[in-house]
């Protein structure tokens, strides 16, 4: 009984080598790369496309694909003889931003890409590619050379409304240039990259255990999930195993993170619609979850808990009992609040048909996370590619197909319930085994790690040398996929007053994208 990946690879005439049970690697020539990936993407999902450049070596392009009904991943890579390659974007629109990043960071030109332009480095000179080891001189950057609004908007009486990067409250820095005809949104020119910290470059040459702390600071509110994905990538690369107790702890903390994120998201949604009591109630819930996390791990955002091969902390029975009591309280309050919200017409009416992402569009761009699930895409790496202790718990993956803000709210609320359910199950059956104390044994290699962050699947690919130092780290948090469609969602017949609702319902992190 062949696996779906094997069958697909056979169809595509690709020779596949398996790394463990979950990762299949294939290499192909540059001339056929585009056609193969495009053909594969018809029945599989292209989840990532990135480049690796090292001085003295040919650049490598790697595509990561998820195949239907297979819990494994297919990685197809190719070596580029020159500094250009055939763009996948004309056939696969979702590859657009990946290829733009490849050009910007590595200087590899995707030939035939219809929409090139700076992705994160809006103020930089055009021929400057950071991952090639080039450095700009210190000093303030020249004021944006790319000032043209993209796309250009014309029309009688159309004007621009700039928002950001310094926005209103304590929010992340990103620039949105709205084109409006009055109070409607005609188009949004989205500019991210103000928070570009070159995290992938900083990691190169560092020991993997130190890079864990960088991975924790990739994004604050999905810190644990991204670090988990990175740690698993390292562990899979060196073949380290993790004890069941630690797997349970990892799962529990990941779900705890999901809990406080979703509480926060619904709270922001309520704030966008002016429902201040709901804001306060969800704010209290989020704070209580953060405090629980602080008690359990010593850090409210669950940092410093993971290490390669296990966990730094132990969850004692006392901790677990206390958490169980709190969980019951949270479940009850969340259920009541959710019911109340659904009955509040001033809230639901603002969300209904706002920022609709139709299922076809969502499928074309393969959205991930609750945003994708609210547009009918039934994907969740916890269920489709089980990791940690997820295979030992039962949970549903809620999906709605309307695609509007109300659907996203419903998905988040349903996922809240599922997270609570998962944590309850975990607390019910806690394995009681000793932790192995072996330090990790380093070896050269590369591997993929994944985890379902609150915003969707986070993929991390790591290449290590024989001393455990990171040669290349590719972080693909879910924001990289979902920001694509934000401009489209804004422009689909919404008003400027809908904008806070749109942003709150998407709940995508800027820091994850900018890295």
């Amino acid at each position, binding site marked *: 009984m062949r696996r779906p990946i094997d069958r697909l690879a056979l169809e595509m005439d690709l020779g596949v080598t398996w790394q463990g049970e979950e990762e299949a690697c294939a290499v192909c020539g540059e001339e056929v790369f585009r056609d193969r990936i495009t053909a594969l993407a018809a029945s599989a999902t292209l989840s990532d496309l990135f480049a690796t450049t090292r001085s003295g070596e040919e650049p490598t392009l790697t595509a990561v694909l998820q195949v239907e009904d297979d819990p494994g991943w297919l990685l197809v890579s190719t070596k580029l003889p020159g500094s250009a390659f055939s763009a996948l974007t004309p056939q696969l*629109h979702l590859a657009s931003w990946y290829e733009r990043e490849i050009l910007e960071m590595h200087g590899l030109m995707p030939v035939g890409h219809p929409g090139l332009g700076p992705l994160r480095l809006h103020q930089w000179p055009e021929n400057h590619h950071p991952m090639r080891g080039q450095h700009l001189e210190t000093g303030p950057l020249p*004021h944006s050379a790319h000032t043209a609004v993209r796309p250009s908007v014309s029309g009688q*009486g159309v004007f621009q409304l*700039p928002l950001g990067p310094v926005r209103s409250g304590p929010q992340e820095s990103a620039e949105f240039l709205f084109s409006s005809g*009055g109070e409607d949104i005609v188009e949004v020119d989205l500019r991210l990259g103000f928070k570009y910290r070159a995290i992938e470059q900083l990691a190169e040459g560092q020991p993997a255990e130190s890079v864990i702390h960088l991975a924790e600071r990739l994004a604050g509110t999905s810190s644990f999930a991204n670090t988990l994905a990175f740690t698993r990538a390292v562990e899979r690369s060196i073949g380290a195993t993790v004890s069941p107790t630690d797997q349970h702890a990892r799962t529990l903390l990941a779900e705890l993170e999901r809990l406080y994120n979703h509480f926060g998201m619904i709270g922001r949604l309520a704030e966008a619609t002016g429902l201040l009591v709901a804001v306060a109630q969800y704010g209290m819930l989020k704070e209580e979850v953060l405090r629980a996390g602080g008690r359990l791990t010593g850090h409210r955002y669950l940092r410093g808990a993971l290490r390669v091969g296990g966990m730094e902390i132990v969850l004692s029975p006392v901790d677990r009992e206390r958490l169980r009591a709190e969980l019951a309280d949270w479940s009850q309050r969340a259920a009541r609040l959710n019911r109340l919200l659904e009955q509040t017409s001033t809230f639901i009416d603002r969300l209904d048909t706002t920022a609709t992402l139709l299922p076809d569009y969502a499928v074309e761009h393969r959205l991930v996370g609750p945003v994708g699930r609210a547009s009918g895409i039934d994907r969740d790496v916890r269920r489709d590619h089980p990791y940690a202790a997820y295979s030992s718990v039962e949970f549903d993956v809620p999906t709605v197909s309307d695609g509007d803000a109300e659907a996203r709210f419903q998905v988040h609320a349903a996922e809240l319930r599922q997270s609570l359910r998962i944590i309850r199950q975990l607390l019910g059956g806690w394995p009681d085994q000793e932790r192995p104390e072996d330090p990790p044994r380093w070896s050269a290699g590369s591997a993929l790690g994944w985890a379902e962050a609150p915003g969707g699947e986070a993929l991390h690919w790591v290449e290590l040398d024989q001393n455990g130092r990171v040669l290349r780290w590719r972080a693909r948090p879910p924001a990289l996929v979902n920001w694509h469609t934000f401009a489209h969602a804004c422009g689909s017949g919404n008003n400027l007053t809908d904008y806070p609702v749109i942003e709150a319902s998407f709940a995508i992190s800027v820091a994850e994208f900018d890295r």
Partner: protein
Amino acid sequence: MGLELLAAAVACYTLAGLLGLGVLRWRALADLSAAAAIVAGLLAVVSAAFWLGGSHARLSLPITTPIGGLAFRATPLAGTFLLLSGVVGTGISLYTAGYAPHVGGRQVQASLHSLLNLSLLSILVVLAAGNAFTFLITWEVMAISTYVLVTLEFDRPGRPQAAFLMLALSKIGFVAMAVGFIAVGGLRPGVSFTTLSHHPVAAGGLASAAFVLFLFGFGVKAGLVPLQGWLPEAHPAAPANVSAALSGIVVSIGIYGLVLSIITLLPTPAGWWGYLALGLGVVTAAYGVLFSLLVPNLKRMLAYSTVENLGFMIAMLGAALVFASSHHRLLAAAALVVVILHALYHALLKSTLFMGAGCVDVGAHRLDMDRLGGLARRMRWTTMLFFIGAMGLAGVPPLNGFQTEWLGLQMLIRARVLDTPEARVYMAAAGMLLTLTFALAATAYVRVFGGAFLGAPRSKRAANAVEVPLTMRLGMLVTAGVAVITALIPPIGIGGAVASTEGATHVPGLLNALLPPFSLHPAQFALPIQVGGTFLSQILHNNGMVIVPTSFNYAFISPTYIFLSLVCVIALTAGALRLLGRRERRESAVWVGAGSEYRASMQYTATGFTNLFRSTFGGVFRAQRAIERDYHQAPFFAHSVRYVRRMVEPVEAYLYRPTVAVTRRLSVAAGRLQSGHVSLYLLYLVAVFVLVLLVH
């Protein structure tokens, strides 16, 4: 004296017209022509003073026809209109001296000068017309001369059609007017307006028919829905000084015609006359203001605003008729005062605004408000004068528009005295709609002024705007200055309007009812008397500065005191800030989120400002909005986006076009009568001959 001075004014205009023709040979004659026209205007003003004073001079020329002779008379009713013609005419003539070179070449300038003076002349004569025949003849001269003026810039697209529409509707109105005069028995030899006003001939059904004919006949020039279609087309199409004359004087002549024919020539009105006029007037006002909120062209906006103001005037005329039909003569007269006063104020302010639009056209070469902006820095005088006009018509206290709008609404509130509840409800509903209209008008003027003059320039031409020549500014200053003076000193404006109304309706004591001297009501004015002290005692015996809607049980205002207190408050605040405030100053860039640099496109445009009204009232004009994208390969890679808005003008789409289509079909059918066969024509001749024999 009244008619002699008028004759002198006519002579000066004739001279100015002839000198204008001479511009074809010698350019210097243009200034002389303007000077002559200014003198004519001043003479008209002086003669208006006499007319308002109660002159009843009469003049008959020895030319008679079967439908009447050429007779002229001076009346107080026409006095206010003569005043406004004179002032606005002076302003426009001054303005033309500087503006004409920007309109076109030698030939165009010559036409402009001569025809403008001809039309101003004809307006004076219309006001002096003593009988229907004279009235109609001079009215036609006015209509044709203004028509030719509108087509002056005929090579620009859409101009000839606009002028043709104006002419066509004007003809329809003329026919209606003429038939109306026939119905009241005016087109007969020896019957003058004076005799008709003393002994109205028409009665009952004939009077009602005449009312409708007059309403729609004069309603063409007075911009009554559904006959207002030419106004928003022709006024913007004409050069700015002509637009000023059209919107300022010519529409006021339409109002004069309405008042003259309906109030003086017809007997006591029936009840429904007033309701019809009121209803149509309110609809006109709402229609005008809605469009003025949305159109991006500066002149078109002003034209629609004219429609709105005319609607208000006609509505107040209707209110006057309602009061008159239930024998509340004082209230009817007060409502009529509002009509005439608003005509005066509107003429002064709207001509200022149109002249201002002309300045913008000359200085910035653009009239699209969405591409203007920032003119306040580069064209200071134009901005200030335009601002006065805009504030005045927006209804900002203490200026003109506020006074008449307030007084008009007060009159509608007085509908309490009417007998039937339906009447009261109708008047109240009209009042509500008018209030909404005024609020929207204020928004429209904020939009115009803010969009065109304030902010940063949105196009290169706006950024390089230059101030206009001195004469153009002086022309605007004349009309704006007179407007402000009449606003702040009510006895001038209201006094004139009251004199006109008294001449038309013969209701005594109107001035003291509206503008009472303090001595008449010492109890009511106790506080001002205490505060004012000896200064006030000097004017105690004169008509005061407080406007009262004929009864102290309602509100009363004083524009003068509002103005004085505003000045005091501003002066005190400025002084206090000067003394107590700190004088540190630091300049900093515009805050736009610290991302992109500030661009002029990052401010609200005029169209964007009122987009909300487009969606709210979208049903009225089938507003549609479409977003079109140009892209490479897929909409995801859109590189340009176009935002398209479409709008339909209901009267034009649902009334004019079908009417034109039907008429065309009818005329094609009728054309079959002209088959070209001689035998058929002979048959026609015989048939008509037989008919005539039979009838006679």
